[in-house]
Every structure is written in structure tokens, then in C-alpha cells.
């Protein structure tokens, strides 16, 4: 943690930016963010995390960036198809790679460098525009509904931080409901020894996946300017 003395604000968002673009191009490849408890979550968390584990979430940022590198190599050859396949193998391997690297770095600046801490369903999440997030099931929300989250506790940009007491007034996080699903099954097994008592129950908690589209409304709040 002492090594983070370098200017690493929003390093999470910049390292995930490449992978977010890929999840926009290819709907199949979407690596999960850290789960809420972790962290990130996971993240991503976790706990986990989300985030945790995010949950996770959060704690597994290094494997995530390697995941995004692998995804870049897989996805980009589709865009650079029209190469003649009759060439010898070393040449097509060398040529696509600089093209992929250049394209990935040109696409990154589309992401705005901002994050917010938002409270949903009694839990707090660190949120970036363009990423998705699993929360408790939002009753009455249908797929492709636009949602505005008002309990924004902190907003951070590259140069300033807006710390809410407790809430940043007039700040709003806009999101779109993507899917109303269920968490993976958890087996609840209750057992008392020597009393012949066994109960085996499966449980899937309902969740909602929302994708964050933007963070607005924080500009007029008294800010803390960071010395960068």
C-alpha cells in the first residue's frame, strides 16, 4: 500500500476499461465484476467483489487485467480478417498484434474517469460508468428500465473528490436494468448429531444486474481538490 504513492487514482477503471469495451463488442465475453461483498466486490470483488466478493471482488484486480489481455487477443482477429491466409504463419501473428495494441489503447479514452460510491438495497458499491453490477432484486423494475440512484455517498474524478455528508446532494447515478436473475445455488444443510435431524434445502437469492451509464449532478457540491 505504501507503493501506491505514485499517482494511481482510478487505476481500477483504467485497467478495466479495455475489458469493458470488449464486453460491449461481444455480448458473450463478459467477465463478472467483483461481487458486492468483496468487494467488487469481488470487483469485481468481491468478497468479491463484490466486492466484494465483489466481490469480489475487488481483491482480484490482477487476474482481471490478464483476463482482459487474453480477451483482446481473441476478439481482435475477427476485425482484422481480410489478411491473406496463404502467408506463412509467423507474419500474420506478428502483424495483428501491434494493430490490436494500438486499437485497444485508442479505444480507452472513451471512458470517463470517474467513480462513485452508491448505496443500493442497504449495501454500498463502488461504481464505474460502463460496468455492470449485481444488486438485490429491485421489485417493479423490468428489463431495459432506466434507473436513477440517488443515494450517492462519494464521487471521485481524476482531480477532485466530492465527499457526501452523508449524501452528495443532487448527484445521481444513471443505470439500466439488464437482467433479473438468481444467484448461484447455495445448499443450506442443517444437521444435529445423534438426533436424526437433517434438512437439505437449496436456495437461490434473486438478484438484478444493472449497467451503469453515467454519473451526474455532483458539480455544485463543495469539493476537495486533490494535489495531483
Amino acid at each position, binding site marked *: 500500500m505504501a507503493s501506491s504513492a505514485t499517482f494511481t487514482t482510478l487505476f481500477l477503471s483504467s485497467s478495466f476499461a479495455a475489458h469493458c469495451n470488449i464486453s460491449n463488442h461481444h455480448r458473450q465475453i463478459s467477465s463478472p465484476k467483483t461481487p458486492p461483498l468483496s468487494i467488487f466486490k469481488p470487483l469485481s470483488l468481491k468478497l468479491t467483489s463484490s466486492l466484494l466478493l465483489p466481490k469480489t471482488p475487488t481483491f482480484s484486480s490482477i487476474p482481471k487485467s490478464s483476463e482482459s489481455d487474453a480477451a483482446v487477443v481473441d476478439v481482435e482477429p475477427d476485425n482484422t480478417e481480410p489478411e491473406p491466409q496463404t502467408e506463412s504463419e509467423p507474419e500474420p501473428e506478428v502483424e495483428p498484434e501491434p494493430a490490436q495494441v494500438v486499437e485497444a489503447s485508442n479505444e480507452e479514452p472513451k471512458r470517463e474517469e470517474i467513480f462513485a460510491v452508491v448505496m443500493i438495497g442497504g449495501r454500498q458499491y463502488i461504481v464505474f460508468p460502463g460496468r455492470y453490477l449485481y444488486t438485490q432484486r429491485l421489485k417493479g423494475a423490468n428489463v431495459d428500465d432506466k434507473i436513477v440512484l440517488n443515494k450517492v455517498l462519494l464521487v471521485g474524478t481524476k482531480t477532485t473528490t466530492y465527499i457526501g455528508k452523508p449524501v452528495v446532494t443532487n448527484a445521481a447515478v444513471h443505470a439500466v436494468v439488464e437482467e433479473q436473475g438468481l444467484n448461484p445455488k447455495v445448499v443450506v*444443510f442443517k444437521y444435529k448429531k445423534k438426533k436424526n435431524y437433517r434438512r437439505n434445502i437449496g436456495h437461490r437469492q434473486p438478484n438484478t444486474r444493472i449497467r451503469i451509464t453515467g454519473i451526474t449532478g455532483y458539480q455544485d457540491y463543495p469539493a476537495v481538490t486533490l494535489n495531483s
Partner: protein
Amino acid sequence: MNKKEILKLAKGFRGRAKNCIRIARERVEKALQYSYRDRRNKKRDMRSLWIQRINAGTRQHGVNYGNFMHGLIKENIQLNRKVLSEISMHEPYSFKALVDISRSAFPGNKNVVLPTRKVNVSSINV
């Protein structure tokens, strides 16, 4: 559960517990009991981890965890420990701003011990 499900849950167990149903059943039941208990323990462990991380982060700025949280409560900042630990790891400037706010709200007692820089004997070039 029938035998097939039990042996599927017993993958990775040691010795006969992964192959033989009578032994596997006992071990799988124990494993499920542990997972029930540990889903509750995980919440406690994670909170303790977050507190350790926040403590480490604030002590780098000369404030200890107790005074830091007291200052945040006085200022009515309701960020929870999970988010505070993530900010302390990934957003150092925002975290420093939080520490400054807390320090101005509650200067605390004078007994804060800053971590001393220990110099390793072998790294000194004579």
C-alpha cells in the same frame, strides 16, 4: 441426496472419502455443515480484514483506526468499511481527503504511534 450427488460433492476429498459412499457421506455432511457455519463467519472475517486495511491506511497518515472512524461519525459520513478499505487501496488521494476531514473533526488523543521505518542491517552499505 442419492449416492451420485454425494460423490459429486465429495470431489477433491482425501483418501476413501472421495470414493466410498459410507465414508463420503459423513465427510460431505460435515463439509455442508461447515459451509453453513462459514457463510456466517465470512461476514465477520471480511469486516475484520477491512478494519485492518483501513487501520494500515490511516496510520500511514498518522491517524489510527479508532480516531478515524470517530471523526467520520462526527462528520456524518456514512461510508462503510468495505468501501473505505477499497478506497484506501485504490484511491489514495480520496482516502487522504477523508483522513484530513476526520482529523479536523476529531484530533484525537496524542498517543498515536506511527510505524517506524526499520532499516535492515544487511541493506546498509559500509
